[in-house]
């Protein structure tokens, strides 16, 4: 079953890296839509149903928390799992994100396996292998 994931981060290198991890996940067929800013994400969201949203917090224009708040208030996207990826410079911002309804957060930098495990969890697929959750 094909899944759609929205990746929002203003760093193109990061976007490509994460898209690579997602596309390489064998047990899922994942289609990645990548956006460089909150604005682009707002534009991309109505276009289809996303199974997971991965977003950074610090971005120009509309930042991750605002995007998250909007996703949670919008009936169409209310239930979409949101994975916050952010550097841990502002714990308050991350706590705020979780309070706003983020499903999970990962502190940058993180190794690929931790990310793919989180993605699997949020997409509802069984974790691959027996290495156990991070």
């Amino acid at each position, binding site marked *: 079953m094909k899944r759609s994931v929205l990746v929002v981060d203003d760093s193109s290198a990061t976007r490509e890296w994460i898209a690579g991890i997602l596309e390489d996940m064998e047990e899922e067929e994942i289609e990645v839509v990548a956006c460089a800013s909150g604005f682009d994400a707002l534009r991309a969201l109505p276009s289809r149903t996303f199974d997971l949203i991965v977003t950074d917090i610090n971005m120009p224009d509309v930042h991750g928390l605002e995007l998250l708040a909007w996703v949670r208030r919008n009936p169409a996207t209310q239930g979409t799992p949101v994975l916050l990826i952010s550097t841990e410079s502002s714990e308050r911002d991350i706590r705020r994100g979780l309070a706003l309804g983020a499903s999970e957060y990962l502190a940058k*930098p993180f190794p690929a396996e931790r990310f793919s495990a989180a993605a699997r969890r949020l997409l509802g697929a069984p974790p691959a292998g027996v290495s156990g959750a991070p």
Partner: protein
Amino acid sequence: MTDKGKGKPKSKSLDGFLAEAQEIIEAFSRELLKIGRTTGGEADPDTVNALFRSAHSLKGLAGMFGASRLGALGHALEDLLDELRMGRVPMNGAVEGALLDAVDVFAALLSDVQAGQTAGGTEAAGLADALEDKIRSARMPAALVAAADPLDALSLDPSVRGVLTEYEEHRLRENVKTGKAIYRARAAFDMASFDKGLSDLSGRLKQVGEIISTLPAPGVAAGERITFDVLLGTARPRSQVDEALAGLEVQVAELERAAAPALPAEAPKSVPAPAPRPEGAPSAPLVQTVRVDIGKLDRLMNIVGELVIAKSNLLSVAEALKGERIPTEVSAQLFREGRNLERRLEELQAGVLDVRMVPLSQVFDKLARMLRKVARDAQKDIELEVRGGDVELDKLIVEELSDPLMHLIRNAIDHGIESPETRERAGKPRRGKLALGATQKGNHVVVEVSDDGKGIDRRRVLEVAVERGLVAASDAAALSERDVLALLFQPGFSTAREVSELSGRGVGLDVVKTNIANLSGVIDVLTEEGRGTQMVITLPITLAILQALIVDVSGRAYAIPLNSVLEITAFREADVRTLQGREVIDLRHATLPLVRLGRLFRLEPEGPAGAAQGFAVVVGLGRERIGLVVDGLLGQRDVVIKPLGRVLGAVRGIAGATDLGQRKTVLVLDVGAILTETLEAEPRHRQTG
């Protein structure tokens, strides 16, 4: 992180990382320049925030790709900038110094990464350690003022407050503390174009206050319109806010304050307003750019060049066909299509050239940063004025200009501008002025480096020149001012008694001149003792495609770039005089030296000798003019200059070759070099006796 697992970035990702890191560092550097322009302990919050975001992005990026030393420095800088933007640390010399150094250390660390060294132990890592110490001492913990949070008094919807980041909250608090009013501007836009509408709204709002946050508002209709709330902090009266938003469909509401001491919505003008907000700079539009490999641009240029030649050939064929027995409609149509092609090609040519053009600000910004460091080290107080950063030149030229301009600036700082004490004694302001400017003059660009220092001591120049054997003592007195200044550009010349560490290892103005000459440019010096010095560089805008005048010299065709041609004049051999060993003619009451190209190139003359008339192509660059004597004029063409190849090396007076079609190669003259060669040659002394 060292364990990468399956998601290890491939080597192509390394290029992506390097390119992106480079961009972040450049953005950081650009923002940094704006900091220098504010005074006092306050730095523009938008700028500081932009710097913070750059450091933050760099830290995150470095972490993802395992560049740990770079990431660690980014982290240290991020902490400093966070405290700066949160108002816990003021902007002072120590902080500014650390930020300035950071750009270079980042660049050095990035080189390490490129070379595969990410952990440490390199020279760059040592620099990073030193910088981190500097950062630590710059971060003094400020006394925390324990007071009631003014935000609690604001009628701010808790859901809105919950969405604000810590920084946005801080800015909101600052605005409230300084007595500004907070407004919420709500507007709805179409999903397809909301960023344009929002950009317009933000632009207008920025003219009257500070934008604290932009929030997508709740209650959007599915897929049709999206509503945004923009929070604005301003000291201006409500009427001005409304005025700025005239014509837009927007609802503006003020967030009320529960406590009385807050200013009423219509603040009377008598309240001293804090430092004015940035003048009308619209919110930075999301500029779409594409990173292009300069090699690809060069290939594109070559293809366009070939097309230009093909077009010329086509038109020649059409011209030739005119005489043949071809039905006129066909011939006319051929011409029409040819002209059409020519127009499109001109557009394409202009377009490709435009892509290669970059603004001089690229190199000016780098120089501005360097200058502040050098001035500080030399303990001189210098104010830099930069003009014309938006003037554009071919990318390769701009890159090549960096070194020569750096030398000139260093010279101005070392030898030109005096110490503050010396200046004061001389009745000058303590702060010296250094101006860096560019203007476009037709097909050329003039770049200037000028200072209001002590000027060039001509007597000292002569002394040194004689000491170094550049000129015989007996001839010294006879030299004109121009000639004396020209000595500065001779190799082996240096007026510093000891090689100044700041000026580098004895690299002199001769290298600067050579670099400029390689770009087909010239450099002039104007100086006044006690008042200052001006170095003027004149450059052609592009070395790629040029219009050229094709001339006949002794039966051979040569191309002269049209941008150097001032006029073409016919003259009579009888009017040629000899002045100080050179042939000259009078051109509208000015003396024009002549250069017979046939003689210069040692070509056998063709055709009957002793013609009564000749043609002189008057060329000029900078302040000089000469007339190139040719045997005939063959027309005007667009040409692409191709280098002669490294095997051959440089040939005096020849800039390159071009293909005129039918595989006929024509050499393109280097006007600057011929000018220099002619004017500096020892004038042939008149035969005596």
